[in-house]
């Protein structure tokens, strides 16, 4: 039943690029798990689960990480993981060449730039909103409409904050690029889940 469900979910949108992405992810994940298989026999359940999840995340992050790629969440995952000393081995194994030098430089630069950018966009937005209120159109709208629009804007604001906390590296990003990141992140999460399901099915099928 699980097989049917997973195929049911994945067939509507299978393209050649997505299957190749999935295969790449699966390969990297298995590779990563093989790399630390020796240490995994000793550690507890929680640690094993963490290593599995970590290797899956890193595998996902490292697919499609080309020099010209403009999404930030992959680098954010990798930098966050590299802060933990235990996982360095995994990182080096999975992510490989362009990881170390590129990432450190880029991430530092990125955080500096984006925090400054964020500040500037906030200032601009404040000044623009003050200007907006003087435009004629506001006076023609009734009070109810103004209140409704204020409320909806507040809701949208709250939800973008939540989304920022969900998407890795999304804190220091403006709304527009956050959307782009979210698209990319959702696509790769879907690929990741599909790939993991396939491997797990294969393993359980071979066991039983």
């Amino acid at each position, binding site marked *: 039943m699980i097989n049917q469900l997973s195929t049911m979910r994945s067939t509507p949108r299978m393209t050649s690029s997505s299957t190749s992405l999935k295969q790449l992810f699966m390969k990297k994940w298995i590779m990563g798990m093989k790399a630390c298989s020796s240490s995994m026999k000793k550690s507890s359940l929680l640690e094993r689960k963490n290593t599995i999840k970590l290797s899956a995340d890193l595998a996902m992050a490292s697919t*499609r990480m080309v020099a010209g790629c403009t999404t930030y969440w992959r680098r954010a995952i990798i930098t966050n993981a590299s802060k933990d000393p235990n996982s360095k081995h995994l990182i080096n194994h999975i992510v490989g060449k362009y990881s170390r030098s590129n990432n450190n430089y880029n991430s530092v630069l990125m955080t500096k730039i984006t925090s400054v950018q964020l500040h500037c966009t906030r200032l601009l937005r404040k000044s623009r909103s003050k200007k907006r209120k003087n435009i004629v159109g506001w006076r023609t709208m009734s009070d109810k409409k103004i209140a409704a629009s204020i409320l909806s804007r507040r809701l949208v604001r709250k939800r973008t904050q939540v989304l920022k906390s969900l998407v890795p590296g999304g804190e220091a990003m403006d709304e527009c690029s956050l959307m782009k990141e979210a698209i990319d992140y959702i696509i790769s999460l879907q690929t990741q889940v599909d790939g993991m399901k396939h491997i797990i099915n294969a393993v359980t099928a071979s066991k039983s």
Partner: protein
Amino acid sequence: MQPRSREMQAMSSFLNQQSQQMSMQDQQNTGNSLMNSQFDPSSSNDDFLEQMFSSIGSSSCSWPDVMGTANPKLPPWDLSSPSIDSQKSRDLAVDELNQENVQQLQFDDQSVMLSSKFRQHQISGGSAKALLLRQQLSSMQSRCVGGNGSIADETGLIHLPLSLGGGNDVLSAHNNPSGNVSVQNLYNGYAGSLLGSGQTSNQFHQPQDFGAAAAAAAAVMNSSAAAPSISSAGGGGNPGQPRQRVRARRGQATDPHSIAERLRRERIAERMKALQELVPNGNKSDKASMLDEIIDYVKFLQLQVKVLSMSRLGGATGAVVAPIVADNSSEAAARGGGTSSINGGPSSSTNDSVTVTENRVAKLMEEDMGSAMQYLQGKGLCLMPISLATAISTATCHSRNPLPPPPTTNAAAGAAAAAAAAAAGPSSPNTPSTMNNLLHR
């Protein structure tokens, strides 16, 4: 309730007008496979993206420009072709565009940037984003066509963006002999905008016919002369700026701030539309509820990853569930310590209630599955494996059924249970009882 700005309203009214005329012209449609071959053979997902982006890109400003400048030069199809068929109209459209190109092309920074981005994406292996950029590029070019009166070398400049991406499969297919490429590309964006504008967001996967677009192009150009003349009057207010990329519409401010903001808003709207297709249940028109769905979906996927990384390890039920719950609390603690200012009041309280329930269920499950199930039943929840939850949610979003399934509670309960269900194997006593619960609700 959707806060629609003025330009969105204007755009939608314009699109409605276009769609009406397209339906009229559909009657005269003769199948034309020629333009289909020009259209990129890609999956349905990419089709949709192309159409949406081209519609948003081109329809916003290219129409009044093209109409405004076309009239004095050549009236291709108003008088001389009462019984025009799609082939002729397409040729005329091509000719008209050709003449436009020769006179009014301007190459600006944005298309360079877009083309370089596009090339990078092509290199990195072609995705929906590559098509997004390509459509942006073609829409940029079609915008530039009617943009202003500066004379520029058409072939050279149009080839410049295309040749920047040289060496890739898709672009090499476009590097045909000189004029045809650019014209066809522009025509793609041009006619593609018609296609996109005539469709709603639910009709992505229908293969459309370019003959309809060609015939409709003639009709729309004919009968929408009145509307563009009005808007070009407003747009003619700033003729002197050489680098103008976006023509302002009537009654709107033309200072760079609002133009930039409008561009930004358009970009966000494009991306929201792409997200609408990705996320299941994404048929909301409201930005706030769309964001809500996106958030739920991301949380759901992240949870699935976590559970899937657990499921293979096996072990007792309690030992499996506890790490997930412990992970939740540790994550919440870390996040709360790190970013205390960002989390608002209401969101944290809902999170707390969910985790409290999960903790209780986990404790009960360690003792006895039956008591855990009773506790959940008392709350109106049920346990089910996550794959079933996925299937049900996709089924309900397709059929739009009347019964309101609470997705968050299902996911929360499913999280606690999926580990148990998956790790203990597809345990048959569990699943029938959950099915019973679901049916009785």
